[in-house]
């Protein structure tokens, strides 16, 4: 939010060690020559904070970069897995074809790959205020792959006229195991831990989904054109990771300089 940072940092205060150069009458001058005032420590502390903020706002205003590009798949697309449906076939269909490798167009644009940055970020507390629906629809989880941030909510819903048993796990540990009858209430739960969550339906075992949770906002899921976009990336050295549920990881080390606009073309396998 560059606007807010601008308000906070403009005008930025002078450094503490230049107090003597400030015009008579300013608060800095008054502080300098009245050390016995009880507010002196507070003023000095405020000065330190303002100097610190000026450094941060300098980074926030000037240093942010953008990483964007495409993820593609090269080669023959593996055939879908065909599953014979034995439960609720009247609704789910007698057979379902499961194709996690969604490739579009002659260039091989890969959909539903998660592109993210691994590394140390200057800020720790990122705002997170939206939720992520996990919808049981037509005996499949929609969307099948979700990227989310800690502090956000996941909302599990059922749009089907049959029972679903949505079971979300982080590793072996159950995060949420809930029954959802037709027209039942949605269930909302906050994501507190980063990691890879698996989503299954214990009733329809062919249903599968993935929820990848980060403790930062620098991730993006590729769209049907294979595009991804990471915005407001602070300068630094990172590892860019691309994850796909069946194709695995692609990684690339990046050194992001201030105000850069990097475009990448990443190709599986």
């Amino acid at each position, binding site marked *: 939010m560059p606007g807010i940072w601008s308000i906070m940092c403009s005008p930025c205060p002078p450094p503490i060690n230049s107090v003597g150069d400030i015009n008579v009458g300013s608060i800095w001058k008054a502080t300098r020559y009245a050390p016995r005032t009880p507010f002196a420590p507070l003023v000095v502390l405020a000065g330190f904070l303002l100097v610190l903020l000026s450094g941060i706002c300098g980074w926030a205003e000037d240093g942010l970069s953008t990483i964007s590009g495409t993820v593609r798949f090269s080669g023959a697309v593996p055939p879908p897995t065909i599953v014979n449906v034995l439960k609720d076939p009247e609704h789910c269909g007698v057979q379902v074809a499961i194709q996690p490798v969604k490739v579009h167009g002659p260039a091989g644009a890969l959909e539903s790959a998660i592109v993210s940055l691994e590394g140390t970020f200057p800020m720790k507390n990122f705002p997170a205020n939206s939720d992520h629906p996990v919808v049981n629809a037509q005996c499949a989880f929609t969307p099948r792959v979700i990227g989310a941030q800690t502090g956000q909510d996941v909302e599990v819903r059922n749009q089907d006229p049959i029972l679903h048993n949505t*079971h979300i796990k982080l590793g*072996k540990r*159950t995060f949420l*195991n*809930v*029954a959802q*009858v037709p027209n039942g*209430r949605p*269930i909302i739960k906050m994501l507190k831990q980063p990691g890879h969550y698996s989503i299954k339906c214990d009733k329809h*075992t062919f249903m599968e989904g993935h929820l990848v949770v980060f403790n930062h906002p620098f991730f993006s899921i590729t769209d049907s054109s294979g595009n991804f976009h990471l915005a407001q990336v602070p300068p630094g050295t990172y590892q860019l990771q691309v994850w796909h549920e069946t194709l695995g990881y692609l990684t690339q080390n990046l050194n992001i300089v201030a105000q850069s606009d990097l475009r990448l073309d990443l190709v599986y396998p």
Partner: protein
Amino acid sequence: MRVQTLMSYWLCLSIAGLIGHVSSWAALADSDIQLGQKIYERSCVTCHGEFGKGDGPAAFYNSAYSAPRPRDFTVGNYKFRSTPSGEAPTDQDIFRVLTNGIPGYMPSFSGLSEEQRWQVTAYLKQFSPDLFRESPTVVDLPDPFIPFSLKSAQQGRSVYLEMECQACHGLDGRGTGATTLMNDLADSRGLQISSTDLTFPQSFKNGGTGQDIIRTVLTGLDGTPMPSYEAQLQGRSEDAWHLVNYVLSLSPTH
């Protein structure tokens, strides 16, 4: 000035006393855990293993390749809770399982004193400290309570069907629903498990009383496919108790 000096001494002594008091609480908690560990190593390690991974020597002989295996406390899946799905159990939940045991699987440890059972409870939580970082919230039981009656049980039958309990437990409650018969049910280790026979409440692992059943229905059994119905029965207190009464009515002794 003298009064101020005295006040300063008094303040310092008070703070020192308070620190000492808090330290003694902490020491008490630590000693509880240590004593709990000693009891665990004597009474629990045979099944649950030295490091709480459910891999003690008896675990292999009891159920090497079939479920349920002894709980792996390091994973942090607790089946028997009074808290929402995915949350930590309360201390009382762990204490209750220690006291009652699990029918057919784990013996009751009511032979231990109450204090010793609390000490073991404190020690078990050390195996998955991140799970217990936050205080758990207990799920509210439906209010008002509807006592057992045949009429309530009959009403509960329709709730049973609406919630599709028959998918696993079967239309007659004997644990022979389609999902069970297709061998689709597995626990968190991937081992195949069966559905509980609801006509035999003595075998209910989380207890067979009405209170036990409603707790199981609302919270689910983490680490198994038994889901939480808390959201689906929210605002339907009477239906929740009708369902419990229907399950109770399946028992020939009721």
